[in-house]
């Protein structure tokens, strides 16, 4: 079945690319795991024909390769959702860093400016 052959080749290629990215330190293991699982599961069902037939029968899908697509789609959705959470976390962190940086710059400016300023009596006595 050519669809399954294509799926098998594609998932093998995906596995290869992901492993190479990890090796080249362009992808952290933590984020690669979902990709490896996706490629792995698709590879398994692309090769293991009776398994795919059982799966599609169980899901009530008449044409087995569609079960393969549905499975791939499910994994992609999970991946995307995972990345949305990662982006949210990164943006929260960059917000905190931006705020802290501004606070430190202000403090630095204050400390650098202090030696030049002569304390004024008026300021000291301002509050009774």
């Amino acid at each position: 079945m050519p669809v399954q052959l294509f799926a098998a080749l594609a998932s093998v290629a995906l596995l290869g690319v992901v492993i190479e990215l990890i090796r080249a330190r362009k992808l952290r293991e933590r984020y690669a795991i979902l990709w490896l699982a996706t490629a792995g599961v698709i590879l398994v069902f692309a090769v293991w024909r009776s398994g795919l037939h059982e799966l599609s029968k169980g899901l009530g899908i008449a044409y087995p390769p569609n079960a393969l697509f549905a499975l791939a789609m499910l994994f992609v959705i999970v991946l995307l959702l995972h990345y949305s959470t990662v982006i949210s976390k990164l943006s929260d962190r960059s917000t905190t860093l931006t705020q802290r940086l501004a606070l430190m710059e202000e403090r630095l400016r204050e400390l650098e400016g202090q030696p030049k300023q002569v304390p004024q009596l008026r300021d000291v006595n301002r509050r009774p």
Partner: protein
Amino acid sequence: MTHAVALIAEDARRDTPRCLAIVPAYNEEATIAEVVFEVLDFDPDFQVLVVDDGSSDATAACAEAAGARVLRLPLNLGIGGAVQAGYMYALDRGYDIAVQVDGDGQHDAAELGRLLEPVLAGQADLAIGTRFSGIREYRAPLARRVGIGLFATLVSLRVRQRMTDTTSGFRAVNRRGIRLFAVDYPHDYPEVESVVTAARGNLRVCEVPVFMRPRAAGRSSITTFRSLYYVVKVLLALFVGLFPRQPLVTDE
């Protein structure tokens, strides 16, 4: 010196509360100096902190020249992130009271006295200056008034207290409020949500009717183009806020 004596000495030294005015500003060079002057006119003992939210104009320089301290955010965070930076500053420097005044000049600093009253009297932890519950009526466009009314109704239900205008950014908080908002403040369009944040943090919230001016210069951060996102985002935040959430931990 025993602890108690030290505390009394501390109290004596600081019989007047230290107040910080947080002024978030994004490209407000035309109005920012006037806002700073107005706050200092109201009370020269106020420290004015302008949070320059990554402006591309001379907002920071104008604010500094007018006598304010300036936090320069290297990136534009939006009003929520800018205001929170102000609360972080207030917490770091141990201020007792913080007020929030918009940098566009629509809040009249002369009304700060009225706004501060319930907070200084210890009746509320967060006071919100509203334009609807009295005094001269503020005429907002219809769509906007409908939105404000909808948010007010939903927030009132959520916090079990009647609120008339939760979109106002004219606010005063005491130390409890500073402590909460420094670690937990909503993003994007924070005003409505922060009322819920306050209620969740067990702050006592009250509304104070004040006079507000129409915008002197610049444009509202809420353009028609973004208003749909604004409404949906706030509604989603309010809806999700209905579910109990684990207490916020500053860092995972």
